[in-house]
């Protein structure tokens, strides 16, 4: 069934407007709460709040959590390996951005 609306759907920008609970983050990434828990311990994600129920993740966590989820399921990497891979990928992205700024 194909559906076409003439009304434009209005979305919200996750990175600008949202703090995510662990439930919302798991739902959006199709990840297990236990995995998110371990990623927080390994420093992949850095929520505010003391307990898992009180955790709030900044919008940017969505990208990181999805990447962590893909790396751990697709490559069967353990959580500390995921943390290392994410750090290195961030560093590569930063270096690429610097190269692009100077147009090299």
């Amino acid at each position, binding site marked *: 069934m194909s559906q076409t609306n003439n009304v434009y*759907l209005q*979305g919200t920008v996750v990175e600008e407007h*949202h703090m995510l609970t662990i439930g919302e983050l798991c739902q959006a990434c199709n990840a297990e709460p236990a995995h998110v828990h371990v990623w927080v311990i390994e420093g992949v994600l850095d929520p505010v709040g003391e307990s898992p129920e009180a955790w709030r993740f900044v919008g940017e966590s969505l*990208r990181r959590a999805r990447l962590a989820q893909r*790396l751990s399921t*697709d490559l069967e990497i353990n959580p500390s390996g995921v943390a290392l891979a994410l750090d290195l*990928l961030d560093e590569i992205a930063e270096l690429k951005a610097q190269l692009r700024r100077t147009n090299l």
Partner: protein
Amino acid sequence: MKFKDYYEILGLARSASADEIKQAYRKLARKFHPDVSKVADAEAKFKELGEAYAVLKDPEKRAAYDQMGSQWKSGQDFQPPPNWDAGFEFSGRDSAHGAGVDSSEFFEALFGRHGRTGQRGARTAKGEDHHAKVLIDLVDAYQGAQRSITLRMPVQDADGRVDLQERTLAVAIPKGIRAGQHLRLSGQGSSGFNGGPAGDLYLEIEFNPHPEFRVDGRDVLFDLPLAPWEAALGASIAALTPEGPVQLTIPPGSKAGRQLRLKGKGIPGTPPGDLYAVLGIVLPPANTDAERDSYRAMEMAFDFNPRANLTG
């Protein structure tokens, strides 16, 4: 339909042990994973690997696959023999590992297309969230835009069978959105289970490459070539920004590589990004006598050694 040789895809002999299969998969998956690979067709290649692994790591699926015999070659026309899977029970009928519902025709003919079944049953549950990438132009981020987006989305029917359906959504792209950000459309994911709410749809934003403008987060940069006299003496130069033409004042003594900042003229937002003109100096060629004389006159006029800093 073409036959797929899952052993060949993983570079294995048909006698490979479970450990060898796992090792071969992990090695190739690292090489071709779209998040880490620089290979051009990494995504397609990775899907193929995931599918091969989903079959060969599962003893039942592997046995059923092996039963078809070793006479088949990759790419050969293929129809599954009748009752080929008689006697096999594929427990936990999941989709291809890592490949989502996007498995090949060959895989689906053998093992069916199966969605996740975990959330079905009597429980009321929210539908799955979905993700898609959307390419927009840089100017859309400056002005906002309306876009029609066509997605192929898995839809699960009452029997739990999953089918890909095409949906066209008209979406407002908000002004100020940046590459890598996610636009959340509430309730546009999969339908809920047993009256639960529908999931959400997340659109990840990417910019189409622009021939002149480069983007870094909120900041936008472009190259501005100058003649040597413009750089040395200063000038007022017309330049085209994503928001239209502006007049730029080049200060005297500008060096190549210097960045002129146009504060707040990057991608809009709170705070807005900045727009940078990256100065370059282009030497005019000396083709005519008059042009060559000009360079010689410069040589006479200047006491200039460009290598003054070299100590060698």
